[in-house]
């Protein structure tokens, strides 16, 4: 039954994009430009250097591509639902989900899927052909696993922030910061030292997302993988606890 619901949600997303086709195409084009601008950011910086403290242009672009793939997957499946949490709680639509007999949170997370974003994955994948560090065939499935781990980190943090809507109602600025910060998950993890490491790797795990695959292929660092799993689990548990504890205090604003 839940599979049918998800299928229906995918169809709704596609139909919505078809209705506003011009806007959809312009947004697709925009996201390509967005990727190009991220590359241009480093291209301009690397115009003045060949290598920055041991990092080549190709290595940095590999992080940009990985970050882009993870953001596209996150935006396609979860971002819409998480961003709508605030308005669902404020307008009372949250009640509809509470009345669902099962898979309540799964449907809530996937309720505002944006399938058009998935098309965009072609462009970073095309760039990946040129800028990949893969040496063996099994590097490709391994890369997919690390992408999924990066997505898990991104999802768990997004889930935690969205769950705060049950307590605070308006969390739009917080989500704006979250999305803005994660759009800069393109920086190599070596820049985060001392207190910056605590802020941008542990508390806000943006330094982990795209750096997990990079660190593995660059130095086979298992430390970041374990850290990613621990931090993601902590945020998922915290998000879940908030739901359980504060749902009792939730007052419906619906009619």
């Amino acid at each position, binding site marked *: 039954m839940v599979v049918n619901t998800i299928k229906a949600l995918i169809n709704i997303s596609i139909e919505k994009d078809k209705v506003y086709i011009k806007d959809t195409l312009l*947004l697709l084009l925009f996201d390509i430009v967005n990727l190009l601008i991220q590359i241009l950011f480093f291209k301009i910086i690397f*115009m003045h250097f060949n290598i920055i*403290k041991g990092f080549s242009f190709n290595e940095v672009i590999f992080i940009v591509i990985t970050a882009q793939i993870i953001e596209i997957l996150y935006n396609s499946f979860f971002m819409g639902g998480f961003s709508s949490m605030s308005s669902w709680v404020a307008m009372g639509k949250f009640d509809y989900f509470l009345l669902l007999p099962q898979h309540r949170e799964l449907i809530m997370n996937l309720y505002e899927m944006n399938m058009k974003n998935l098309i965009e994955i072609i462009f970073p994948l095309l760039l990946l052909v040129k800028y990949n560090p893969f040496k063996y065939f099994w590097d490709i499935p391994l890369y997919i696993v690390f992408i999924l781990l990066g997505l898990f980190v991104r999802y768990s943090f997004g889930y935690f922030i969205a769950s705060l809507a049950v307590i605070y109602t308006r*969390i*739009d600025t917080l989500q704006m*910061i979250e999305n803005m910060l994660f759009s800069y998950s393109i920086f190599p993890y070596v*820049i985060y030292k001392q207190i910056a490491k605590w802020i941008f790797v542990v508390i806000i795990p943006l330094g982990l997302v795209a750096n997990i695959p990079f660190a593995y292929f660059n130095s086979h660092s298992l430390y970041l993988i374990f850290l990613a799993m621990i931090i993601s689990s902590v945020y998922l548990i915290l998000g879940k606890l908030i739901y359980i504890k504060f749902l009792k205090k939730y007052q419906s604003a619906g009619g």
Partner: protein
Amino acid sequence: MNLKFYINEIITFFRVSYFYKLNFWSFILQNILMFALFFVFFKWTGRIGTLNSSEIITYYLLLMAFFQSLIPAVDTGFFSKIRSGGLDGILTLPINLNYYFISMHLEVLIFKFLLNSIIFIFVGFSLKNYIIINFHTIPFFLIAFSISIILYFELRLFFTQFAFFIEREGALASWSYFITMFFSGGILPIMIFPTLFKKIIYVSPFPYLIDYPISIYLGTQTFDLKRLLIPLSYIIILTVVNKVFSEKGLKVYMGYGG
């Protein structure tokens, strides 16, 4: 009477913002975190082109303290007001529509400027080894900054008034924000761009929003009255265009409200 109305609007919106505590504190955190991110990155890279670490870090400090708020995004609230018929209620008021929307946004801007001034003075003090203080360029910087604020409102009004003519704002909002941000120096200082690219960008109105005032402060560009003619011309042109746009838009507007 009108001025009193606008001030009341500002106070009301300020109170609403403060009521939602998490949102309020997020406002404060937003730019500090962004600055910290750029700080660690450019501290790592060191000198880039003609700019040394201190100049780059001061650039991003000023960017996050004031100029990040001056990237003219589309007012998405205006689109939803038009779609929901909410504009009818405003049109019946004895006020200018454009001034009304400026006053609504002005509260956010004043709020951010006041707050960021206090916060970034502390940030500046704690990073005083990296921050450049140029007292002699401050008067010129303030002139360029004032022009950038006016230009910001003109561009914001220009982009927002497309609401009268198109149904969905998503693409326009993303494009206008991102293009303006990139070409105004909101991502990277235009000073480190290739020379030809830099010259072309400086003919457009965008660098006068961010890159030009900060360059004046840093002393990497001199204050030149001839150069000021470019943003001033854009302000005059946009004022006329916005007036025409507004009149034409109101003619095609149909209220859907009950």
